[in-house]
């Protein structure tokens, strides 16, 4: 259920959001190389249902690569990745099953320019979940209203602002009713005045209990939404903690250096 976000809520991490014991994602001893370049080193990560994970770190640290491994946009060479009980291997059936349950939002939106907004949203339900067109369009309009732009349904992506496009992209992923949402720097390509409207949508999603992993530089957002912040550097997970501890009591040298750089302005 959605609660109105009060000033109190914003001042503290999201309350009343239960993190269950059910394990959604497990990464066990995961390594990845691009050719000879060792880009993910011994990644061990467990994500439970309802958790909101924020991953931060300098560029080139492997944050995007990590989450892209979760829906097989990148392949890992060593270790195990298990999503909702299904292991990610070269088996196409497993991959497609996992991709149906994991939604992804990209930095550059990646909307389909030759389709209208409504068609963008209804495409996957129709062709992947085999829904009849009427039902798919109903669901699409519902999510368009959720992201507060139902009037844009017939427009084409090129006619929308960046913030609107990203909200359409979020709605597009939600139309597949995923159990897990991955955000790859969702606001990095947006003008400052549009960042808030997109973050608000993500915060609402979090309050409804969506399991999510978000790669972002928006530390204010991390403080509101995350129940765990992970710092990555050089392909390794350096440190992870709940937000308050993470930002106030960083343990590792590299974490402290990174925080001092990004929190200074």
């Amino acid at each position: 259920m959605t609660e109105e976000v009060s000033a109190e809520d914003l001042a503290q991490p999201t309350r009343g959001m239960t993190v269950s014991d059910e394990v959604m994602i497990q990464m066990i001893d995961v390594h990845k190389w691009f050719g000879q370049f060792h880009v993910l080193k011994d990644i061990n990560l467990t994500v439970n249902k309802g958790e909101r994970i924020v991953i931060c770190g300098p560029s080139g640290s492997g944050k995007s690569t990590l989450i892209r491994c979760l829906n097989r946009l990148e392949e890992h060479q060593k270790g195990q990745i298990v999503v909702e009980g299904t292991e990610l291997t070269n088996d196409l059936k497993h991959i497609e099953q996992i991709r149906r349950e994991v939604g992804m939002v990209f930095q550059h939106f990646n909307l389909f320019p030759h389709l209208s907004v409504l068609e963008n949203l209804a495409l996957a339900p129709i062709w992947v979940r085999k829904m009849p067109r009427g039902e798919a369009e109903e669901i699409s309009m519902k999510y368009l209203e959720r992201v507060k732009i139902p009037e844009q349904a017939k427009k084409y992506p090129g006619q929308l602002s960046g913030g609107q496009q990203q909200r359409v992209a979020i709605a597009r992923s939600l139309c597949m009713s995923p159990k897990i949402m991955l955000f790859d720097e969702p606001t990095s390509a947006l003008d400052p005045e549009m960042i808030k409207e997109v973050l608000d949508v993500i915060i609402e999603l979090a309050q409804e209990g969506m399991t999510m992993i978000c790669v972002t530089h928006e530390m204010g957002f991390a403080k509101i939404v995350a129940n765990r912040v992970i710092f990555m550097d050089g392909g390794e997970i350096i440190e992870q903690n709940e937000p308050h501890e993470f930002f106030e009591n960083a343990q590792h040298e590299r974490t402290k250096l990174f925080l001092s750089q990004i929190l200074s302005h």
Partner: protein
Amino acid sequence: MSEQAAHYAPGTHPDMPAPASTVGVRGWFMHNLLSTPLNIGLTAISLFLVYIAIPPIIDWVFIDANWRGETREDCDRVGACWVYIRIWFKQLMYGRYPNEELWRINTAYIVLILAAIPLFMRTFQYKHWVAIFLLVGYPVFAFVLFHGDTAGLELVETPLWGGLFLTLVIAISGIVASLPIGIVLALGRRSNMPVVRAICVAFIELWRGVPLITVLFMSSVMFPLFMPEGMHFDKLLRALVGVMLFSAAYMAEVVRGGLQAIPKGQFEAAQSLGLSYWKMMGLIVMPQALKIVIPGIVNTFIGLFKDTTLVLIIGLFDFLGMAQAVATNPDWLGFYVEGYVFVAFGFWMFCFSMSRYSQHLERKLHTGH
């Protein structure tokens, strides 16, 4: 005309019409043809060239031409002898197809046009069925009609097929086959599977590397040498297969260019939504890629249409081949110019129509967004 330099207080300047010399027809002439001394000179030279070239052509083609008559005496050789074209019209259109059976070809033309009309109607619901009929049912139907030897139709062997009819058979077969095969080859060339990629690269480079004339020559002369004794493939069929594979290789590269222009993010977004490889290609990637390369595709089609004239080398008499053959008729020697002009005009009509349709398609699909 002198313009008064009137000044107004800020915020009170009225909207005024543009100077007459810059708008409308006069404006266009002034700006494009007469704006600088160089342009005035070029305009004068162009007008002069038009004056010396166009009237004689119009005289030859229309005014002094002979349209009526039955024999070569009716042509006084001042203008074009269109009598010649009228007399040999059937041969130029149909080759040596028997006169009594021409209705079969005309029926096939009419069915094709009637079946294609719904595709151009905006609100027609069943375009998919029409497309399937045209791609699968019509070729069989047309072949039976043309070739005969079944359903009570008399056999007309392929060496008798000729003229514009033969050109259309070869060109349409090549065009219709080259796009789907080309798409598959392009996808195969970009595949991650090494064997698939190797086969596609080899195919494309082999067929692109030899001239079409060699392909036709090989199909006609060399191919039968490798066939077991007594096994005969129709010469036209061999030529058709050669043309189809040749144009598919060219089309593959055009399509691959379009695929390269699609940002990786489109593939990733489609994959992350759970779309399978073929659904991703069919719904997301191909519509965008093909739209981008419409100019390249139509260009290849137009080139193919004209390349069909090479079948003369293997003894098939297409539109141009018939014009050449007819020009050697002893009663009508010396009229080869009219023949070539007519054939050139015919080719130009088809090619220009394709070009115009492609521009219409581009406008309709808003390719320039």
